[in-house]
């Protein structure tokens, strides 16, 4: 939407002020996330920029909070717990969600809209309600404060993302490709592994990554379900933020920002790959 040659003064003023407004909104979106990264290198236990940091004095920066994070048994344990929970629940979510998405994308699927609404509902129901319900459910089964119950709960929360992502990557799936493969002599198994799966895989991986990050970031349900043995990093972070905030939290937060940048990059890569493979060129 370049400025047309016939634009008048008013239009020109609006055009540039509109861009400035948008730039400010982008800053609002991104600055809070970026600002914590330099602060995590603060040599002093403050949550703001010191004079030394602003003067770019090297002695005002340090790795002490990262050191505190990595040398703390509790933090490292909880980080391990988080990754264990996230990996296990993402794998189960991906398997269940992909199967369901395959079924939902079939034209013959009965009651599609209603069943989709049910499958997506864990994303919509407020987390505190899910947490309350699951806590009493697992407590009655004597399974509260176990990895099993936390992983099962995170599978519930992760599957909607897998279903949505895989269904989206299946929409516009060219059924002719299957017929083409079969007419060229491929049997069902070969067709699945050589044609369907490669096309589906970017969507499946993207869904799995979504489920993974959902579990890794989840706080509310684990707050109720996790005992001291299972404490994941989010719970430790949450109580840290509530009581006394130490810059160690900012060090962990910066690492999490790095992880989300990594995941975002891989998602973008997967999306482009998927579009290329399906012949949707980006112009």
């Amino acid at each position: 939407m370049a400025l047309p040659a016939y634009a008048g003064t008013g239009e020109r003023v609006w055009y540039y002020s509109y861009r400035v407004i948008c730039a400010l909104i982008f800053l609002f979106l991104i600055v809070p996330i970026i600002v914590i990264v330099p602060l995590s290198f603060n040599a002093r236990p403050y949550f703001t920029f010191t004079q030394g940091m602003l003067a770019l004095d090297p002695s005002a920066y340090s790795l002490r909070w990262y050191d505190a994070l990595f040398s703390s048994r509790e933090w490292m344990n909880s980080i391990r717990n988080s990754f264990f929970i996230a990996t296990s629940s993402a794998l189960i979510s991906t398997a269940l969600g992909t199967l369901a998405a395959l079924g939902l994308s079939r034209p013959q699927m009965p009651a599609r809209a209603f069943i989709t609404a049910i499958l997506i509902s864990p994303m919509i129901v407020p987390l505190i309600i899910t947490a309350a319900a699951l806590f009493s459910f697992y407590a009655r089964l004597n399974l509260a404060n176990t990895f099993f119950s936390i992983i099962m709960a995170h599978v519930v929360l992760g599957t909607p993302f897998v279903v949505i992502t895989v269904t989206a990557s299946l929409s516009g799936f060219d059924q002719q490709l299957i017929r083409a493969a079969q007419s060229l002599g491929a049997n069902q198994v070969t067709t699945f592994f050589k044609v369907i799966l490669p096309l589906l895989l970017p969507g499946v991986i993207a869904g799995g990554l979504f489920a993974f990050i959902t579990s890794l970031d989840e706080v509310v349900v684990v707050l109720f379900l996790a005992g001291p043995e299972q404490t994941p990093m989010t719970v430790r972070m949450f109580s840290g933020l509530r009581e006394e905030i130490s810059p160690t939290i900012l060090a962990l937060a910066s690492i999490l920002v790095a992880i989300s940048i990594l995941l975002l990059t891989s998602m973008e890569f997967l999306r482009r790959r998927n579009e290329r493979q399906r012949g949707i060129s980006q112009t």
Partner: protein
Amino acid sequence: MADIPAAGTVPEMRRDEELTTADGRPLRVALRRSQRQLRRRAFYLVAPLLVFLLVTFGWPIANMIAGSVYNPEVAHFLPLTSSAISDWDGEDVPGEDVFAAMAMDMESGLANRTIGRAAGRINREIPGARSLVMGTARDLEDMQPPYREAFLAEDERWGDLEFWRLIKRETRIVTPAYYLLALDFEYNSRGEIVERPEIYQVYRQLFWRTAWMSLTITALCVLLGYPVAHLLATLPLKTSNVLMILVLLPFWTSLLVRTSAWIVLLQQQGVINDLLVWANIIDASGRIRMIYNQTGTIIAMTHILLPFMILPLYSVMKTIPPSYMRAARSLGATQFTAFTKVYMPLTIPGVAAGVLLVFILAIGYYITPALVGGESGIFISNLIAQNMQGTSAQLKLASALATILLVGVLFFYWLFNKLIGVDRLKFG
């Protein structure tokens, strides 16, 4: 024209000459069967997840809802009293039959140690009732019928009509009591539903606050999201893909990280206040309080939910051909008229999707209000969480509050489904 047969006209088929498959079955039946099979196969693929969700998500929630109205103690642990008192009119101290039933319930209740739970339940409504019931039950073996006189001689509180009315009310296994409490009503001593004393009224106000703060957040998201989505949709794809990262990165970043970032920025010794002091806009003594109140919750949640507004808006705006605006301009519309009369109406589906999504997510928020909301910025979820850690009565109140919130959320989810359709939901 009249003598040319309409295309597609097939000679009428006689009933006995139905088309059949090679093995002689009518084609219609065979087709229906194969379609049924396809439907079943599609369903089998969905079934594992559906069953899993029903067992580990649907069932617990149904249980929680049931728990919010379930009131078994009096009916189960004072069964004879419950049936004897059903005929009592509530006007005078009950007759001997009720007292005798109570005595027998106490006897069996002492034997299998359930009397304490019934007494505890009554004690929740009338403080001191526990010691009355337990004390009388312990002295029961020294008493002789008629029990009415014996009980009244033991303790005159047995003549208290309020006590008996409560028992009669609590014999119902399904009680609305926790919903009344969740909406700041209660039973008075005569068993009528009245508003609670003003100082105890919390929940209705909190429901309203949750609703209007979510609305404010949604409105701010529209205000900030609309221009950005429009820019992203109209810029060349190369540029907009780069700018899109600025939207997607917050979307992918942990909620806790974003909330802690806002704590860092907004607190009184935080970055923004430092900046304002440095720029001489405010004094060091006049640092602004922007966090641990409603402002903090609204700013942080707007930031967190903004991507959920931008993404659906963007996907709708991208489908609007730019030629529409040019056509409107060429027909003499000003930029403003063209925008409000042509472009904006076309974006309504995106706005509706974004608004509903943001509002649904906002009213259930817990973490961000808990961390930056202070006293005045908390949501109904925070009180649900608080009550969850209390006694069994508070747990039931939490279930009632959660059920009310759930009904609200499901209504908007239903609306979303009806207007937009969940299958249109996409990320990235």
